[in-house]
């Protein structure tokens, strides 16, 4: 299945794009997705521990099981204010 991934803040610079599509197997988790993205965008791999992940508008743990068509966002720690 395919999911759409949007990058925010300097993750756009690390990946060189604002958005990407990625395939994950049925039953794949956010962690599986991250590993695939890290292989595709090596600069992301170093950010693994500080990466925040959301599906639609809610944070989700790495164990979240993806569904076809999920809109995933990846970004560094937030800094509002």
């Amino acid at each position, binding site marked *: 299945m395919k999911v759409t991934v949007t990058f925010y803040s300097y993750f756009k610079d690390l990946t060189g794009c604002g958005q990407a599509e990625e395939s994950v197997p049925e039953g794949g988790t956010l962690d599986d997705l991250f590993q695939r993205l890290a292989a595709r965008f090596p600069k992301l791999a170093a950010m693994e521990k500080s990466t925040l992940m959301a599906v639609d508008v809610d*944070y989700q743990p790495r164990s979240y099981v993806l569904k076809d068509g999920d809109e995933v966002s990846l970004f560094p720690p937030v800094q509002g204010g």
Partner: protein
Amino acid sequence: MKRQLTITKKAIDEASLLAGRAVSGGAGAVVYFTGVVRGTEKGAAIEAIEYEAFEKMAERQFGLLFDEMEKRWPVESVRLVHRVGVIKVSEASLWVEVVAAHRAEAFAACQWLIDEMKRVVPIWKKPLAG
């Protein structure tokens, strides 16, 4: 609890925000905070900060924070404005107002809201040098 959230590219107009303040007869405290862009970032001079928001998620996360704030303190109203885009040094990036019956909960709720915003609301900043 009344709540008002604005995420905007426009300059924060504090005068009109203050003019629009609504306080009931039961309120005894109004705490408001203005965050402005500092002229240095990690010791280096900057001219501005560019703020980026994942706006739809930011609205959702602010909503959850307001829900939690309401559970923790008897707050009458909260208004929060966060500016995004390029904001020059000394200009306001954040304005928060909390109205409550007593100062203890107004101060505590305002401080908590800003702390939590910095932890969960998807807004990022990029310093811009001169």
